[in-house]
């Protein structure tokens, strides 16, 4: 009967060692995020010079570009965790993937929103079907699909596997989607505007951009770890509840 005890214990081992670790990491990264964001915004708004073409409106780039980077990177990370969870059945990997999704979707939305706000003064319109904006929109759909499928399947184990599988299919498709959209864009608009990072970036602009990127990173790490903690607690509660019920049935 030693087998009986070992199986669940093994599976929760990683989660139970993760929990106190996350407790220590979350405040550190949250603090780091705030400090970096304050410095980054200061450099971005007051130190970096005015762009000779776009004036002050380009400064939204300091949020837009990190958000767009994060949105793509988080999806990649999510897919990696999905593979680990699907192939090696590591529950912690599934919890991480699940916790990454809302933050990734948030950054995608932020990238779209700031892109639209940037577009207004630059192109004179909030939205153009630019290749990058369009693929960012499709990325948002991929995130929503992952979260939608996860929450739609009542059995959690099944939900986790199905959503993980979807994330993997999605990540295979991301480059295909991107290239097809770029191709479509050149076909329909010729050489149109694009959200160019600008060739003439001063070192101040670059450092503001990097600071903001690191701030976003720290924020994402803190929030995702905290969410993972909440998910662990929630799942443990359900498991406890289920085992209590089954014990009650037997006695």
């Amino acid at each position, binding site marked *: 009967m030693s087998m009986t005890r070992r199986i669940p214990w093994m599976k929760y081992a990683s989660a139970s060692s993760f929990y106190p670790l996350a407790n220590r990491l979350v405040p550190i990264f949250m603090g780091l995020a705030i400090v970096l964001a304050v410095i980054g915004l200061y450099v971005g708004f007051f130190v970096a010079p005015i762009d000779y073409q776009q004036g002050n409106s380009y400064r939204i780039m300091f949020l837009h570009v990190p958000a767009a980077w994060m949105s793509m990177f988080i999806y990649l990370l999510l897919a990696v965790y999905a593979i680990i969870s699907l192939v090696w059945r590591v529950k912690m990997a599934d919890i991480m993937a699940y916790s990454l999704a809302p933050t990734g979707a948030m950054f995608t939305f932020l990238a779209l929103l700031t892109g639209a706000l940037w577009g207004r003064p630059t192109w004179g319109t909030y939205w153009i079907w630019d290749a990058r904006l369009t693929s960012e929109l499709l990325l948002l759909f991929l995130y929503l699909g992952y979260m*939608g499928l996860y929450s739609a399947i009542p059995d959690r184990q*099944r939900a986790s596997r199905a959503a993980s*599988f*979807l994330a993997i299919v*999605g990540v295979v*498709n991301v480059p295909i989607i991107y290239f097809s959209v770029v*191709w479509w864009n050149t076909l329909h608009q010729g050489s149109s505007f694009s959200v160019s990072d600008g060739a003439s970036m001063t070192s101040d602009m670059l450092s503001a951009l990097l600071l903001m990127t690191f701030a976003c990173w720290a924020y994402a790490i803190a929030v995702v770890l905290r969410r993972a903690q909440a998910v662990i607690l929630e799942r443990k509660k359900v498991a406890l509840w289920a085992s209590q019920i089954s014990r009650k049935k037997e006695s």
Partner: protein
Amino acid sequence: MHRMLWKLFNRDMALFMQRKQDIVTVLGFFLVAVALFPLGISSDPELLREIAPGAIWIAALFSTVLALDRLFSEDMDDGTLEQQLLMPLPISLVLLVRLIAHWVVTSLPIIVLTPVMGVQFGLNLDEIVILTFSLLLGTPVLVLLGAIGAALTVGLKSSGGLVTLLLLPLYVPVLILGTSSVSSVMAGMEVTAHFSLMGAALIVSLVLSPFAVATALKITID
């Protein structure tokens, strides 16, 4: 093996043909959707010609999604899906045969009607041929990819909206290729590149998608 697969195909065809109502619904949806474009946008012949490939492709795309709803759900409910997965044949092969039968029953009628739609939108013969051919190459890809979404959502209540959300990003490349092939011929350009890419997409999805669908089904009926 060949004879077994042929028998399987006939079996699936017979089953699908039993649900005539579904076939009519999908076809009706396609016709109505296409007819709504001129009513909703404009009856200007020049404009109609321009939007024709997109309108017909989008209608075909959503008809495919609509038809996919019935691909596994009924078999899941009555227990025949499990029996299919227990056949002494590779699951991916069983599923591939089923998907081909599904395509013949639901997509082929749409393709047959496409030239009529093309005439309604004022396309000339060349353009109609290209449009029909693009659907002939593209709709199997839609079915093959769509089956992954259908398998992932099988057994869920009111999964229609979710399937659409899951499939939309996957369908975008196919849609772009399909419509732009017709736009290119309208602009007097070559379309071989489009068709080579679509052919490649078809081959890749024919090879990979059955395995993906099998994996997805194993997950959801687990």
